[in-house]
């Protein structure tokens, strides 16, 4: 074990108290651990979370009306607009990197794959949290699985796939948790299942990332014609590939800045090369996306809608999408990691805009007056996302995510 323990009484290692300290309090006493938590970031985060939880409590006591502006013309607001339709494409990180490393054998990306899977897992987990907040009767969330089936519904597919994929990603990430807990036998079991889990991830992701777009095929008159297209499933899928990749680039950058002490040399040293490599892929994916978007608008014969406010708004989104691949291409050519990271940020903004525009901002575009959201909804969204960040930090502070566990080096997956 480490130096600290060797200088202490060795019998202590056997006690439950020791393990609790070791696993949960970063080897500090409870008192010191609580003290270490008091810093400006945590205080702000704590306040946001408390207010958000109070609003969520209101929602469960007085109905959705208490915190959302959802109505009988616009049933879904920010909770699903952000939590499900925007959160899930970025959570493609797990399946895209998993495929690259475990199926295509691109060992270069091995250092970031655990982080990508953790980000994916948390993305889905919190999509379910958002869904539970927004569902009218969340206590029936399992009904489509065992009680009552609506197989002609795209949402049935989404429900099944999100549930299955959440389980798949939990298993995929569990190897890191087992390393942390030191349970070698279970870790070996899930590592052995890597190939099956990765392929399951590809199948489930292809279908439900596109299904999120397909859900809006049922609202042709409601989504603005510059966004509604019979190609929506494929547009959603291709942009989700880019979303997963840019998410890895951006979170890697953030971990480099804020979580260095939890990362090992191997991780930190590989990030530049990985970012450039992902940048190349993003350039190609986004060129494809832009081409598909242009042809789909032409196919739907919707260019006439460019006039007016929604047309201008479309141009803003589209220019970001058109700019991103060029920036990626330039950044990769110049081997400039910074430019690739900025391109990733531009792509992220473009994809967030695209999802919110499709499901929310342009929805019911023919109505003269529309109320978009209630401020309490914004607070709830920020609060739940803050909880996600805190959970991510909690896990990275403890489990081998940005580093290899010293006891398991040389026993990687696949």
């Amino acid at each position, binding site marked *: 074990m480490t130096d600290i323990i060797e200088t202490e009484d060795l019998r202590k290692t056997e006690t439950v108290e020791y393990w609790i300290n070791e696993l949960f309090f970063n080897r500090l006493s409870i008192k010191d651990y609580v003290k270490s938590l008091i810093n400006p970031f945590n205080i702000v985060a704590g306040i946001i979370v408390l207010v958000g939880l109070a609003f969520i409590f209101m929602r469960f006591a007085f109905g959705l009306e208490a915190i959302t502006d959802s109505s009988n013309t616009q049933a879904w607001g920010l909770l699903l607009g952000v939590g499900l339709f925007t959160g899930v494409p970025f959570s493609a990180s797990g399946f895209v990197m998993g495929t690259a490393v475990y199926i295509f054998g691109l060992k270069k990306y091995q250092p970031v794959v655990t982080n990508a899977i953790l980000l994916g897992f948390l993305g889905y987990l919190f999509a379910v949290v958002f869904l539970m907040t927004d569902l009218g009767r969340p206590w029936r969330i399992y009904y489509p699985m065992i009680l*009552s089936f609506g197989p002609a519904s795209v949402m049935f597919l989404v429900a099944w796939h999100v549930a299955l994929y959440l389980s798949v990603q939990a298993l995929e990430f569990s190897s890191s948790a087992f390393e942390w807990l030191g349970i070698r036998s279970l870790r070996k079991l899930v590592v052995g299942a890597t190939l099956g889990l990765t392929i399951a991830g590809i199948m489930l992701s292809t279908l439900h990332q596109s299904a999120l777009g397909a859900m809006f095929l049922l609202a042709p008159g409601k989504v603005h014609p510059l966004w509604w297209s019979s190609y929506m499933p494929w547009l959603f899928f291709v942009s989700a590939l880019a979303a997963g990749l840019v998410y890895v680039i951006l979170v890697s950058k953030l971990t480099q800045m804020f979580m260095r002490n939890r990362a090992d040399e191997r991780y930190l040293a590989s990030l530049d090369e990985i970012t450039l490599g992902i940048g190349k892929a993003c350039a190609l994916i986004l060129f494809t996306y832009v081409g598909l978007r242009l042809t789909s608008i032409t196919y739907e014969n919707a260019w006439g809608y460019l006039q007016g406010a929604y047309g201008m708004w479309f141009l803003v989104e589209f220019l970001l999408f058109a700019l991103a691949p060029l920036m990626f291409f330039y950044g990769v050519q110049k081997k400039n990691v910074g430019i690739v990271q900025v391109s990733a940020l531009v792509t992220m903004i473009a994809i967030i805009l695209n999802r919110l525009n499709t499901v929310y901002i342009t929805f019911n575009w023919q109505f003269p007056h529309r109320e978009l959201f209630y401020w309490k909804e914004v607070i709830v969204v920020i609060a739940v996302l803050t909880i996600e960040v805190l959970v991510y930090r909690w896990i990275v502070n403890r489990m081998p995510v940005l580093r290899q566990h010293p006891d398991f080096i040389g026993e990687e997956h696949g």
Partner: protein
Amino acid sequence: MKMSRRDFVKIGGSVVALSLMGNTAAAGTHSFTGYPDRYGMLSDLTRCIGCRRCEAACNKANNLGTPKTSFEDTSVFEEKRRPYVADVGSYTAVNRFEVDGKTVYRKVQCMHCEEPACVSACLVGALQKSPEGPVTWNEKVCIGCRYCITACPFYVPAFEYSSAFDPKIQKCFMCHQRITNGTVPACAEACPVEAITFGKRDKLLKLAWSRIWGEPDKYIDHVYGEREAGGTGWLYVSGVPFSKLDFQMDIGTTAYPELTKDFLSIVNLTLVSWPAVFGGIYLMNHKDKKTHTEEKEVKK
């Protein structure tokens, strides 16, 4: 040789297992020409006098309570009401329109589509097109996702946002209970001028067209609902263009389930082909390395 067989079983097994796992989500719609002898309603807008007795009868038949403004009060016509209003609790509303100097009343309620968008949207099958004609909702299985509201081209289903424990989907059910008991829906029964006719949908369609042919100058040449969204159970005939009465004119004649049918058909394809494609790529990539590690183990 032994190793590659084990590999084969491993990959093949996961392929089979994953395909089976995915099959539960595999879904398909099929073409549907409608239940025989299904009922429908015909609203003749040239006859409606805006007395709102249908609204009153509807509230009574469905135990929806009494609204603050009485059913005789015509001030409600000042605004265009939607079929469901939270504090009133109503499944239908009559709205007034002034078209070319003529006063026309239009009753709004669920259209009871032949192949409803809401039914194909419902992931638990709570919404169903009943063989009798009405589109029904099963409170026991609804999870409150509100995809039906997003999908309905007529903006009909409503959700009780003020209810935390028991939020219902609210809409006209064409008095399904009364129909199965052999009675006429309450609104049709209450109408003093026979502006609402209840009957088998195919007969109502003939009746609608015979009225139009009988008095071609009085009616416009369009039965709204005959083909809209693949056909609806509720039909309208009118003396003025439907576009001037807030009818949705941009929904086309395709039944809404058709819009997602193509997408759902790729589900099986993906579930079957991806394991083969990616499992194959994996094997091409990793076989050498595997035998290498196996060799190492043998040496030990």
